[in-house]
């Protein structure tokens, strides 16, 4: 179906014409670096890498890809770690990061309109400088990660207890369809304001969670939240996985926290076997902060009275690492095997599955001998959790990479068996998900893609059944 080999030279010239000589490359260096992300998925080399600077350029690139039936893969920062931005069938990788302007901040309606390549860090810095009373929900991905990339994959972050998935925080999109039309979705389709997806028929779902197979997001509007001047974290510790669902239920029931994240790690030694629930909250005044702290505490008072759990006595200076957004230290996990690599299965599942999810992770890590870390972030008011199983690997050691891959594969399968769903699943795991999925949904997905992308150019190889 793809005619890339025949037309690659022409494609290159067309792209050169669109973006100029500085922003297109078919050199071995770009092909190498853009063939993989820092996860375990094997390299898939693109033929060309292009970097558009505007929606107009994106549109022209998409049209060219369509005309010549060349695969096209949109790329943010490439930090998804499950290889979703690899060119599985070759073709063009389109690096969106030149499109990184903050276009509008609406303070009263609390939203930000940004170009799709805007990084989390730059949006955070922009708000800090110009609108210090506002913040967005940043994931724990490094600050180079893009806002659009994270929204597209249903990411989560530091406001997810209050606001849900990052896709829930979306107000509207500008998208270039695979056939080249530029479409606005949400209130921005009929209003100059990008304030909500309601009350129109919500087409944003056609572009969320699809791994870039249905179009290219060029602009998006996301909700912003109050940025309180005072922030604190309470860390609840216990040793029994079976009580965690109730702990989280009680704490989230107070609805005063912004982020509730639980972490379990075998290293350092003193952390092994303990569950630490970080509860982050903010306030305008010290009195309010203390009130929130006490309310959170009272939610789990029965456990404190029974001495089965309690809050760590952390002095202020030791809390800073838990208050940092994003948490820089998380990237350190990549060096656990002295090998610059880690990848994780983020399983979206109901909170009640926590004990089984935890046991599953321990079992896999133990049997396969992988270095691991586990945790979960609460989405909404205990509505679900993103339970992560992170495995570190040494990318210079093929056996170590293979071990991590096996662990990830097995984790994906067992998560599905448990009733959870791997988030931002790598291509093999997508097939597992499709195998388990309601056949009518699978069919509908196929039909949607056929309508939107009749020539099947957008990130092919993703969300495809084994036939």
């Amino acid at each position, binding site marked *: 179906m793809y005619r890339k080999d025949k037309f690659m030279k022409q494609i290159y010239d067309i792209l050169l014409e669109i973006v100029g000589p500085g922003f297109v490359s078919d050199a071995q260096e770009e092909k190498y670096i853009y063939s993989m992300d820092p996860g375990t998925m094997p390299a898939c080399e693109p033929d060309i890498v292009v970097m558009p600077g505007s929606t107009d350029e994106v549109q022209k690139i998409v049209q060219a890809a369509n005309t010549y039936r060349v695969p096209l893969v949109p790329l943010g920062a490439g930090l998804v770690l499950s290889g979703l931005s690899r060119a599985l069938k070759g073709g063009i990788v389109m690096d969106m990061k030149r499109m990184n302007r903050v276009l509008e901040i609406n303070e009263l309606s609390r939203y930000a309109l940004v170009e799709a390549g805007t990084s989390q860090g730059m949006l955070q810095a922009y708000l800090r400088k110009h609108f210090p009373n506002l913040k967005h929900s940043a994931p724990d991905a490094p600050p180079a990660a893009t806002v659009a990339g994270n929204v597209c994959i249903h990411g989560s972050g530091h406001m997810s207890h209050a606001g849900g998935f990052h896709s829930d925080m979306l107000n509207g999109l500008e998208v270039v369809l695979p056939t080249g039309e530029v479409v606005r979705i949400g209130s921005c389709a009929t209003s100059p304001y990008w304030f909500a997806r309601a009350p129109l028929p919500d087409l944003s779902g056609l572009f969320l969670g699809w791994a870039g197979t249905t179009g290219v997001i060029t602009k998006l509007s996301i909700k912003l939240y109050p940025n309180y001047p005072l922030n604190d974290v309470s860390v609840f510790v216990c*040793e029994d996985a079976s009580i965690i669902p109730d702990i989280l239920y009680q704490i989230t029931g107070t609805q005063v926290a912004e982020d509730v994240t639980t972490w379990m790690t075998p290293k350092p030694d003193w952390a092994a076997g303990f569950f630490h629930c970080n509860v982050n909250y903010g306030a305008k005044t010290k009195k309010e902060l203390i009130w929130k702290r006490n309310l959170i505490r009272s939610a789990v008072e029965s456990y404190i009275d029974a001495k089965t759990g*309690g809050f*760590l006595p952390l002095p202020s200076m030791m809390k800073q690492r838990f208050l940092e957004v994003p948490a820089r230290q998380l990237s350190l996990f990549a060096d656990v095997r002295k090998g610059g690599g880690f990848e994780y299965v983020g399983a979206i599942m109901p909170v009640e599955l926590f004990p089984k999810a935890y046991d599953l992770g321990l079992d896999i890590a133990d049997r396969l001998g992988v270095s691991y870390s586990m945790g979960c972030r609460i989405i909404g008011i205990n509505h679900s959790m993103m339970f992560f199983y992170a495995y570190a690997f040494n990318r210079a050691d093929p056996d170590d990479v293979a071990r991590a891959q096996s662990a990830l594969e097995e984790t994906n399968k067992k998560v599905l068996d448990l009733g959870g769903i791997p988030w931002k699943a790598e291509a093999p795991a997508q097939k597992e998900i499709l195998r388990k999925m309601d056949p009518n949904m699978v069919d509908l997905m196929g039909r949607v893609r056929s309508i939107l992308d009749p020539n099947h150019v957008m990130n092919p190889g993703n969300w495809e059944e084994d036939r």
Partner: protein
Amino acid sequence: MTFDLAEAKREKTKINTGEHSRVLTECATCYSCEEYCPNGNHPFYVIVERQEEKGILPSPAPITRQQILMMKPKGTITPMKVSAPVIDMCYFPMLTGSIREPLYENPSIIVGSDIFCNIMWLHFARNSVIREQLPRVIENIWHYYLKDSNVDELICFHDECYATFSHLAPAFNIQVPFKPIHVFEYISGRLDALKDTIKPINARVAYQRPCSNRLIPETQHWVDDIFTKIGAERVERKYDRENALCCGQILRAHQREEMADDIQNRNLDDMKDTGAAYCVFNCPVCMVTLAEPAAEKGMFPIHLSDLCQHALEGNVPKG
């Protein structure tokens, strides 16, 4: 806890005879009773013993267990030649930068998990951990550092270490083959030796007396001496000396947040009302707990050793 005398006598008797007393669940582990007892009967050590016997935990079990794991000896100690003065920094490697000339003359510094004094388990109803670890700690200090270097004096940077070796160890019938010296005594002597180089700080200071100093009240006069020598006026205030208030950090470990808030606020307001420019600490935990709130109230938080160092160097930070 508030009692009238009659009730206090009743509760103490229950403790002595091994019955349950509300003291065992309500004790804030501030160590005051150890100081107040005129007969040296170690009332606080007995409370801790009873707590452990009865399985009464001041702090939740997971926190207690995790703290013990965090502080356990790593077994990485290696022999090192030392010479006097040997400064014991316990398990505070982050503070070794304070041990420098001119205040400390050619010091040898020992620090690490294998020489952690373990006295903090008094706050967690774990005399058993002290009994288990402390003999090994003393042996480590003696055999890895002091004995082969022909040094028999150990200068303890922290009140806790000095209290461990001079007060608690004898009470627990644990032998200590070296002579503990409080860092106050050492600093006071050094200030005498360097008196011509002292630039008096001419400021009012509030002193945060830590709980562990209540085990060794005989060392308090050194604090007064030191302040006098560096030209600081230790302000008279309500919550100092015998009425000192604990920093509150342990109360937070005990999940008594509101009590911790209360005593911290009273303590710091008391300091602030004196117009003190500096809030001076000797205990690293007190300092880490109260430094920020003290600064918010307009006082410059500083360790006693560092304040003396600055007085010698002529660069005291502006209070």
